[in-house]
């Protein structure tokens, strides 16, 4: 074999390796080499590379002639990535970093609600589920009525922000309810020493004369490594989901009806979980952007037993269980432990 021929062989063999080992890879390589020899091409064209990379995933997933198997594998990968990313984020998010002590909370109360003596503190060391079925961050919080009338919500909160900044707190986003110039509630956020302070100033009614209340809570800020853990967990889950689809595809290849049902179930599972996945991804991007979420519960809330998110995912979980049962009931094809073909793309076989 001349050096040019050997180089061409190596390049096409590398491209053919996108396909799984076996006769198909070998005959694809043979065909591409024959085309290349006929046309005098020394390396795969861009069109050939794209063509092989477009079709190889189907072969890798065990359904070389099926156009649907790659989109289905992508859906399963996304779903699997969502689950593993959430679990990875939870592993990072459940830490024992201390919440503010009573003395520290009293000092914070003096900054944000001066005049409130001995605020009625509620303490939850770890994530908990409130009465509405929502997972909430572990936190120290209190709620008190306005001690004195607050005629101008914005002016009052601006003073609170100034005092927090002077005490070393880093001010975060502010959200409000009502019209921009006639607000009925404002929520300030500020961070310091790994804590997130949320200060809410709420009017009872539209008019300030109706009175109102303050809501103050301090929770642990999301761990710095959590976004990376979430992404790494998601990536690992996606890879796992992809291989899982390939395994299920091969196991059910002799069962066309079961394959059709499984494809439908994968689409249903993806559809029913899409709103939750979208919400979690948006939350994740917020954390990446500003270091914490404005939600009252962690990004992985749905993994907490009793949280409403788990209820919202009930159809997805049900569909997944049914799909797993179908895969388990399908007998794999005979001879699924394939022998290595006598002729393949091993270098020594080409002359």
């Amino acid at each position, binding site marked *: 074999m001349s050096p040019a021929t050997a180089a061409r062989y190596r390049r096409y063999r590398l491209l053919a390796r996108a396909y799984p080992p076996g006769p198909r890879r*070998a005959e*694809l390589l*043979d*065909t591409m080499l024959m085309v290349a020899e006929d046309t005098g091409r020394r390396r795969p064209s861009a069109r*050939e590379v794209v*063509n092989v990379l477009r*079709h*190889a995933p189907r072969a890798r997933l065990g359904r*070389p002639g099926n156009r649907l198997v790659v989109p289905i594998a992508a859906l399963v990968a996304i779903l699997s990535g969502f689950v593993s990313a959430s679990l990875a984020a939870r592993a990072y998010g459940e830490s024992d970093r201390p919440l503010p002590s009573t003395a520290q909370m009293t000092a914070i109360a003096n900054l944000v609600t001066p005049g409130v003596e001995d605020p009625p503190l509620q303490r939850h060391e770890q994530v908990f589920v409130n009465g509405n079925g929502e997972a909430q961050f572990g936190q120290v919080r209190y709620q008190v009525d306005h001690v004195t009338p607050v005629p101008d919500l914005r002016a009052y909160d601006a003073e609170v922000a100034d005092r927090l900044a002077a005490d070393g707190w880093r001010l975060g986003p502010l959200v409000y309810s009502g019209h921009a110039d006639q607000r009925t509630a404002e929520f300030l956020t500020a961070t310091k020493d790994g804590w997130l302070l949320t200060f809410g100033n709420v009017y009872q009614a539209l008019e300030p004369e109706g009175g109102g209340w303050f809501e103050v809570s301090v929770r642990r800020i999301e761990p710095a490594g959590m976004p990376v853990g979430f992404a790494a967990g998601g990536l690992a889950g996606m890879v796992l989901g992809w291989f899982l689809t390939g395994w299920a595809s091969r196991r059910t290849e002799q069962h066309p009806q079961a394959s059709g049902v499984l494809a439908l179930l994968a689409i249903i599972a993806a559809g029913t979980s899409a709103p939750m996945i979208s919400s979690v991804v948006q939350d994740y991007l917020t954390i990446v952007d500003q270091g914490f979420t404005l939600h009252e519960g962690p990004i992985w809330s749905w993994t907490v037993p009793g949280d409403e998110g788990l209820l919202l995912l009930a159809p997805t979980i049900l569909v997944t269980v049914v799909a797993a049962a179908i895969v388990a009931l399908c007998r794999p094809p005979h001879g699924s432990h394939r022998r290595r073909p*006598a002729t393949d793309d091993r270098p020594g076989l080409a002359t």
Partner: protein
Amino acid sequence: MREPTFWILTALVDQPRHGYGVIQQVTKLSGGETRLLAATLYAALDRLAAEGLVEVDREEAVDGRLRRYYRLTDSGGAALAAETQRLSRKVATANRLLDALRPGAGPATVAFG
């Protein structure tokens, strides 16, 4: 039936062919209009084999490289014949309507449906 599928089946009518043989024959039969790439060809052959329209005729090892020959099955021949008749009917219909519009062929009125 998609055009590449039609040409692949047609290329296998007269004799079994290996992958490159099919590519060459499709290019020739289609007047160069359809040029199959290898991965596209094998995806189509896999699909056609699963539908029972083609099957492996034999395998050869040439210079240590695997070469499989594919042939048309009876079902494949029947499917191609049905497709050919369907296309013929379309062509005949289009020709009939076009003939009616040609100058000197009578009033240019065509009834559709």
